[in-house]
């Protein structure tokens, strides 16, 4: 009985911490972009103000699937967080490991795709088709990276991978996985949907793509989902390549370092077209990840 209570407490704590860190990163990103552009920018708590306003605003709905899709996407993000170890806490650690994470991560674009398809807007259809094509683009190197890590440690459980790194040092410093780590950093903007791969949203081209019909609480959910998404993308990198951490404080510091790396790229780059993005993603990161996988397969 106590075990259940502790587990529920851990789940709530993990979700709450992930939400706070995600919202903090959203606000910090706007501040960094503003400072790089020589202006002051909004306060760091601006996303919270946005979410409070959005929950108090009315919205338009196109039907049941419109509501269901965004809920599905948000639930998918939250459930993935339960599988990722943060510090020493990982509530659902014994339920399938890295493969389940890979599969649950595909619920995120699928939920938004279903709800925006119901909206019957041409911008939404174009946006979601570009999102799926981009997902196919970054999945090729991402799968190679995951397979390299799983083959190197010969397990599919992410908790075990973190534990083994505390014995053998960070994955990034071991030769076979260095190339995979660099490849992951190269595709991280594509996974998160920040510039130069902001093809998903593209406010100027396709009017926010799939979110063109989202008002009020739908947009609030989309913002929260974006926050969780950033958390997931960076947390996977920290767990697989930077050795996890022994408590959430160190975890947050490592996440901050990775965050700064791709935010500086986000602030200065324009947006790729989808063909250019696909050509890039299937060329250099794939090559690096492929060579990394060959090296891991040989040294095993």
């Amino acid at each position, binding site marked *: 009985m106590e075990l259940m209570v502790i587990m529920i407490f851990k789940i709530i704590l993990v979700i709450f911490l992930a939400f706070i860190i995600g919202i903090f990163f959203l606000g910090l990103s706007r501040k960094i972009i503003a400072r790089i552009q020589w202006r002051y920018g909004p306060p760091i708590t601006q996303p919270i103000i946005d979410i409070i306003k959005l929950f108090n605003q009315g919205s*338009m709905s196109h039907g049941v*699937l419109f509501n269901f899709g965004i809920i599905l996407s948000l639930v998918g993000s939250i459930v993935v967080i339960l599988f990722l170890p943060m510090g020493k806490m990982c509530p659902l650690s014994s339920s399938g490991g890295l493969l*389940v994470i890979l599969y649950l991560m595909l619920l995120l674009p699928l939920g938004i795709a279903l709800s925006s398809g*119901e909206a019957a807007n041409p911008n939404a259809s174009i946006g979601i088709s570009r999102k799926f094509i981009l997902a196919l683009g970054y999945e090729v190197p991402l799968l190679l990276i995951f397979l390299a890590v799983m083959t190197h440690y010969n397990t599919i459980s992410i908790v075990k991978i973190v534990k083994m790194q505390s014995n053998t040092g960070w994955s990034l410093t071991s030769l076979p996985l260095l190339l995979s780590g660099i490849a992951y950093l190269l595709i991280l903007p594509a996974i998160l949907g920040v510039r130069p791969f902001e093809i998903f949203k593209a406010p100027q081209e396709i009017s926010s793509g799939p979110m063109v019909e989202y008002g009020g609480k739908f947009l609030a959910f989309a913002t929260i989902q974006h926050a969780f998404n950033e958390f997931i993308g960076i947390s996977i990198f920290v767990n697989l390549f930077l050795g996890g951490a022994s408590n959430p404080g160190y975890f947050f510091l490592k996440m901050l370092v990775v965050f700064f790396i791709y935010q500086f790229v986000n602030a200065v780059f324009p947006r790729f077209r989808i*063909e250019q993005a696909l050509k890039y993603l299937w060329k250099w990161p794939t090559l690096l990840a492929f060579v990394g996988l060959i090296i891991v397969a040989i040294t095993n």
Partner: protein
Amino acid sequence: MNIEVLLVIAFGGALITYLLGKISKRARNVSAVAISLALVVIIAFLYNASSNITFYTGFLKNLSLVLRINTLSWFFAITISVVGALSIIFSLSYIKGKERTDFYYLMMMLVNASMIGIVLAGDFVTFYIFWEIMSWSAFLLISYNRGTAMAAGMKYIIMSVIGSMAMLIGILSLYANYGTLNISEISTFMASASSGYILFILITFGIGFGVKSAIVPLHAWLPDAHSQAPSPFSAVLSGVLIKMGIYGFILILYVIVGLKNFLGLSSNGFSFHYILCILGVITIVIPSFIAILQNDAKRLLAWSSIGQIGYIILAIAFGTSLGFAGGTFHILNHAIFKALLFLTVGAVEYRTGTRDLNSLGGLIKKMPITFLLALIGAFGLIGVPLTNGFVSKWLIYKTLILEGHPFLAFFALLGTWAAILYTYKLIHNIFLGELQEKHNNIEKTPFSMQLPMIVLALAIILFGILPGIPLKIINSIGVSFGLESLNINIWGIASDTGALNTINIFMAVLIIGLIVWLIFKAGRKSVKVTQDNNYAAGTYIPKGKYNYSVNFYNPLQRMISPFLKDFIDDFYMWISRGIKKMSISIRRIYTGDIGNYVMYIVLFLALLIFIQIKWNLW
């Protein structure tokens, strides 16, 4: 209950249905549904039976024809009969009003009965007889619609006959070597055969079964056949008929040749099972990407079937216990969700008259239940957690990764992402997007069409949350082949290298979903708007002029379509055109002029006399 009685009911029922159709349509419908359901019930009662019956001795001098049933046969038989029964219930509304409906029902039940006969066969003669009955009754059903379906049917039957001839060569050589065709006796003989002979048997039977299960060099018949056949039969074709090829593979690889011989069959680095794995991987990747480019709903599903068969072949040829469990479970899963998807596309075609993805759209407002069922089928095809597709794919990936073959695992995972793309294209272009003007007045699908789809959708979810139910049966099949047993609970598999616990995932999704939904409801109520109240930069979208889902993945299509033409199909067509040209030029001998024919006779006699004089042969 004897298994011969089962086969008599199956075949006799087909004939009775046809004859009843001449008297009254309603009696024929009732009898078709009743006999198919009776077959399901009888097979369900045969669970855990295991028997061997010789029902005819003295066939062609000293061959005895044997029927037998064991867990493997039972597993396949229940899948075949359930999918067949549900397709017949679906056809009650679908076929009504078309021509030659008695013939249709006769052929459907004949295909059903012959497939059950195949899995119950205990020796190769029975196997071959039922195999041929299945092949030509499928051909008659594929070309049911006449017109362009004839060409598709011809392609199918020619390739199927070539495969059967290869299989016949294998059977004859087995008879010549061992004097018997009984499967259990042959498996004891083959344990001590030479590896060259094993390779020969594997190749001949492999061609035969490969044509039927559409592995890549031999898949050219499948896209045309599946798209031209009537939809309930497409469900049976794609769901269970191709699995007969897989059943044959399991028979050859595990029962006859035996696991140790098969895995050990290698010569200077090339092992046969690895080549089969590579063929499976090619079958996963290339057809899945070709499916993204299709514009016809059933053709897309047909290419997707080829892709999923690649998973099954890869897992079964891989040879570990997790792989066998994953592959066999995927047979059941693929039958369920592919049949469901073909039935939903059939329902849409029944109501709107088209299956062109570039002219449909927005049907969720008119057919909400069909959309929900298609969505569940699509989730199963992708492998979303909590559906059965996820469990079988998880097993396949886990064994590929843990045995140290990351490249095979990479291509298999890539197939899943291609599956996501084409499945979303199917759902979006048919159900989401904008409702076309001409489809404003269609009604919902009739209940007799919805019922089989509901049953299949429930099975997807049930087997996703509690996969232990079928996995126990599959485990016992694997143990009987000499693979090691897995530790199976009702909700998943426990092992020390990463367990799978679907109940946890289910509870987490349920509770978090509830909380998020409550937060959603606590916000301000949203205003319902219609489809034309859409953001279009301040203007009003005129009705009837736009279709937003044409060329859905256009940038990707432009990039990859030069690489993804179906080279093999073009190669076969080139061969057939060459044979036709050669035949036309040979025909010129028949000039129709009597003088020519007399000259032929005189020249041939002169040639014979010349040979006799020179070399004195006779």
